């Protein structure tokens, strides 16, 4: 399997705090990769570096573009998205005054009606708009959320909010998904359902997922491979079973 994302020796310091201190890892195409670690170990900072929120103080981030790995560190978040990386947030960031449908429709790039001149001429974009709407509806059907199509975000449950944040990326041809704690605040059954969908998406759409998750009991069941961060450094990596039984991981999590 070829590598879709490579993080090379990335470091990020905030004053004296070493949020990331030389992290190197790779994410293979079509992978379902977990990223775990105690609070404050640098997981979200790593996502922030990958998606262009921060410029790393050292090291580089590379992403597959056709057959090459190109550097994406230092790009702005909107440019990172255009490369094909979608992220979700620990506290979901949806557009709260828009409906579920609108939240999906806002995502695709290159909408003709986003051009201020074209926006004035409905005919020039209504065909595309209808196509996107059909696509959004199909998506909502797939995820059993069609009855929420005209709901405001505030009417959704926490699990559906998480779900919507994940699937809105499917409106675009994104390749890599960075999910930040998708199961936080979601009850067990829904969390499993969410992960089942994630696996289905990976299988059916050839997508890659890189997932931060604290709820190991769920995560471990689904992912192929796990990286463990601790104090800004990679502590361990391997298949879920290997990681769980790694004494270093147990020490970091549970103590000696």
């Amino acid at each position, binding site marked *: 399997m070829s590598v879709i994302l490579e993080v090379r020796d990335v470091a990020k310091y905030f004053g004296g705090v070493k949020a990331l201190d030389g992290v190197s890892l790779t994410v293979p195409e079509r992978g379902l990769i977990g990223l775990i670690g105690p*609070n*404050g170990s640098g997981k979200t900072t790593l996502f922030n570096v990958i998606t262009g929120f921060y410029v790393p103080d050292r090291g580089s981030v590379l992403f597959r573009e056709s057959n090459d790995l190109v550097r994406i560190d230092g790009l702005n978040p909107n440019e990172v998205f255009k490369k094909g990386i979608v992220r979700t947030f620990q506290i979901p960031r949806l557009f709260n005054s828009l409906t579920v449908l609108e939240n999906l429709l806002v995502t695709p790039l290159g909408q003709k009606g986003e051009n201020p001149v074209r926006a004035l001429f409905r005919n020039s974009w209504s065909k595309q708009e209808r196509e996107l709407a059909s696509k959004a509806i199909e998506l909502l059907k797939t995820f059993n959320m069609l009855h929420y199509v005209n709901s405001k975000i505030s009417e959704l449950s926490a699990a559906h909010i998480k779900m919507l944040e994940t699937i809105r990326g499917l409106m675009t041809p994104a390749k890599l998904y960075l999910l930040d704690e998708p199961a*936080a*605040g979601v*009850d*067990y059954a829904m969390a499993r359902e969410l992960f089942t969908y994630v696996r289905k998406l990976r299988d059916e759409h050839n997508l890659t997922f890189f997932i931060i998750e*604290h709820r*190991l009991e769920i995560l471990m069941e689904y992912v192929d491979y796990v990286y463990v961060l601790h104090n800004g450094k990679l502590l361990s990596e391997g298949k879920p079973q290997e990681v769980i039984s790694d004494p270093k991981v*147990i020490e970091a999590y*549970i103590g000696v």
Partner: protein
Amino acid sequence: MLRVSNLRSGYGKMVVLQDVNINVREGEIVAVLGPNGAGKTTLLNSIFGLATIHSGEIIFEGKPIHKMSPHDIVRAGISYAPQLDNVFPNLTVVENLQMGSFIRGNDPTIKNDIEEIFGLFPEIERRRNQKARTLSGGERQMLAVARALMSKPKMLLLDEPTAGLSPKAGASLMKKIKEIRDRGVTILLVEQNVRRALEIADKGYVLVSGRIIKEAIAEDLRKIEIEKLFFMGAQ
């Protein structure tokens, strides 16, 4: 002393805890154990009026406190040392402690208490006039516990006091927590570090995915492999 019954709570619409029941008797150290993200912090926040309580009740010394403001809960005799953002970074160590005793007004014994607390935590006494932002993680944890003690609480809520500490520092802090209990303060301790917590606790609850999946006295908990519960949950 503290009874949490059928608690369902979270933040806004997000429900984190479901059907949580907890009992703390006077003079006990009760540990709530669980992995990251299980809802341990939410439990403490719920008790302290910082989370949204959807249903259930929290009774402290016979009085319901789940509708009180944090300010009144401090006056009722509970004190809280959170895990993160637990110091005032631009105040000195002494000033941090003084803030802890704010509700006691101009009590002349505060000065003595500060010295007494420094006796318990000599590590931070050396830095008494430094700003808290210059402290290391471990020193901050101690300062947070010390600050919480300054209101002379009957009960102390501690959120992962040993997180990020070296094993040695962690063990010594745990010993101090036991000492605090021996001075008559009931303690509700939230911990990820099972072994360390069970060394001092009288009773433990295991919280996974927002639910209590096990309740037992500490001795019994020491016998089972809690890691398994952590990783695999109840199911």
